[in-house]
């Protein structure tokens, strides 16, 4: 009875089935309903923007990894997510080349300059979006109505600038002006719940984030349901604030992160110069992540002084 060369490595000898790839692909699956809806509402324009953003993100990742002489790890799916998330946050009226710029900035400045996946302090897609807002403010805030394709404002913009409300049902289904994927709250919610159900993300950030927004709207005299359903909140709360790399690692830390992001969002929305605050809230909280991680440590077993 013989055996070949035996693997002699350190315990544990079995590993869970979950991998970085499986996490990333589950996130993509969770984004699909909203992506399909974006294409349904905004047709070819949406399809092209999404396709171009994803391809640009993958290409940028591959080229930069090649230059850095690192293994081309684009099949981990993270570049696809970055491209897709960015596309979902931009206006359907955006010229394609600007989306390409956004994707390249997301990957290059948002991620690879820090050393690639795992080392970036900010959510890459949000870095790209912030760059686009500063560089192309007009195109980033020109919205079109999904029904007639005419220029319109977002529900948050309408509410803030002109005091015009939008019905809950329209907000839920996405029949409103806004960026590609931010319009249908319902489909984003379904995707987010899928991620929680699958154990990919925990509920701590989305619940504390959304909960804070709702509670603060009530206190400050705004309509909480409107606040929850409009703008980029659902996308941000389930898909961006929960980005593992850039959010705290412990439960306590994630709750603090969510509450902080909720506070900033509502303050910007109600008192700031912009109608939407999700982007800034998450980027700002990304800055605090290392500090939160430092102080929100789990309780250690037996951490009482030995006599």
């Amino acid at each position, binding site marked *: *009875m013989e*055996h*070949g060369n*035996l*693997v*002699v*490595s*350190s*315990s*544990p*000898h*079995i*590993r*869970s*089935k*979950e*991998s*970085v790839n*499986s*996490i990333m692909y589950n996130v993509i699956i969770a984004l699909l309903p909203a992506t399909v809806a974006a294409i349904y509402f905004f047709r070819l324009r949406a399809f092209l923007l999404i396709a171009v953003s994803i391809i640009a993100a993958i290409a940028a990742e591959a080229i930069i990894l090649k230059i850095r002489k690192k293994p081309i*790890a684009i099949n*981990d799916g993270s570049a696809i997510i970055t491209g897709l998330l960015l596309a979902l946050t931009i206006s359907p009226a955006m010229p394609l080349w600007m989306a390409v710029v956004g994707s390249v900035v997301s990957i290059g400045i948002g991620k690879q300059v820090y050393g*690639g*996946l*795992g*080392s970036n302090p900010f959510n890459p897609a949000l870095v790209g979006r912030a760059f686009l807002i500063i560089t192309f403010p007009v195109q980033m805030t020109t919205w079109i109505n999904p029904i007639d394709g005419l220029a319109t404002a977002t529900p948050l913009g309408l509410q803030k600038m002109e005091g015009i409300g939008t019905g809950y049902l329209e907000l839920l289904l996405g029949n409103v002006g806004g960026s590609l994927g931010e319009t249908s709250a319902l489909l984003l919610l379904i995707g987010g719940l899928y991620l929680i159900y699958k154990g990919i993300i925990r509920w701590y950030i989305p619940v504390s984030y959304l909960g804070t927004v709702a509670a603060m709207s009530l206190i400050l005299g705004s309509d909480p349901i409107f606040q929850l359903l409009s703008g980029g909140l659902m996308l941000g709360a389930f898909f961006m604030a929960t980005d*593992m*790399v*850039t*959010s*705290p*690692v*412990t*439960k306590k830390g*994630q709750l603090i992160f969510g509450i902080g992001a909720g506070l900033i969002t509502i303050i910007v929305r109600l008192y700031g110069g912009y109608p939407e605050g999700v982007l800034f809230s998450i980027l700002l909280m990304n800055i605090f992540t290392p500090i939160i991680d430092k102080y929100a*440590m*789990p*309780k*250690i*077993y*037996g*951490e*009482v*002084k*030995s*006599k």
Partner: protein
Amino acid sequence: MKKLTFKGGTHPPHSKKATEKLALEKANAPKIVVIPMQQHIGAPCDPIVAVGDEVKVGQKIGEAKGFVSVPVHSSVSGKVTAIEPRLYSGGTKVTCVVIESDMQDTIHESVTSKGSLEALSADDIKNIIKEAGIVGMGGAAFPTHVKLAPPPEKNVDTVILNGAECEPYLTADHRLMLENPEDVVYGLQAFMKALNVSKGYIGIEDNKMDAIEAMEKAAQGKEGIEVVALHAKYPQGAEKQLIYACTKREVPSGGLPADARVVVNNVGTAAAVAKAIKTGMPLVERIVTITGEGISNPKNLFVKIGTSFREVIEQCGGFKGNPQKIIAGGPMMGIAQFNIDIPVIKGTSGILTLSENELQLSDPLACIKCGRCIEVCPIGLLPTKLESFSSRNMLMEAENYHVLDCIECGSCSFICPAKRRLVESIRLGKAQVMAEKRKAKA
């Protein structure tokens, strides 16, 4: 039934189906046994036999040196053919006594019943346990009599028997509790008497409901003994986690179970104690689960100490396919072996042969800070941080982040989606921090 548990932990697949329903069998008698003089934590034994000597079953062949040490006995009758260093499952060479069996299994004269438990004093019990060479049979192999002698000021008031068997694949303790629950209870009573305590728990994971029932039946009417169902979650059988689950007490950082007024022993150890008292037979045989996808016929066997892995595997129909890894112990904390010409020892709870499919070998990727390792760590540590401190030699930081509290359970490495070798690095960091501390003291 209320089920108890601890904080953190993870759920590796149980993989116990192959053997949990298989009754214990006696392994074929080995022709040759190789008995290491060190099978326990502590000082090695000195051989007290010489090449050419005739020995019998249960005869002492190695004398303990010092308090933290236990003697070693022959598991067969026959002739000593060599005393030399041989490879054992710890990965190094140790002095071994090699005995060629005469296949008679003649029992040594010293093996006689020690009388009834009632008639024995606490010191008698501790002495019997030491002389029988009994060590923790869950895998760590710490001398049992040492655990039974905590400093009196610790006021130990509870004994817990560990029947959790939280390591996947292994079913040795499960079968023992089903087939011989009386001895387990008897052993627990002996521990309680030796420690002069009135409370005893037997903790069993709820994936072994039949064992819980069998133990409850055996414990019925025995004063102070309670069988508790524990959630099946890894590492439920780790000492600190078991103590918390049963008593809600925490062992202070850097302390021993006795600091939580508890002593923990394995159910297998209890059964060995019962045997040593009732029949006088020292620890010369143990139950081993031989399993994994790489084995033709998985089994639970009574194996004589010193039998080679090779013989045991042959009895299980040999390998199936191309085995990738052979492990002494369970898949979470066991030790991978270079070859199979090594003996079964007192701490060998399982011989696991894993196929490629079970191993899931893959290269580590960058940490994506998912926090999974933190969530599962039963101690509440930050494995991802400890790993990076350890691998960058930042020993001060590692110590400040409690690297010494790591129980090396492997939950963090198991769960990590980036397949990082967390516990491997942490273990090294821990060893270095301890070495530094020792240096600082000296």
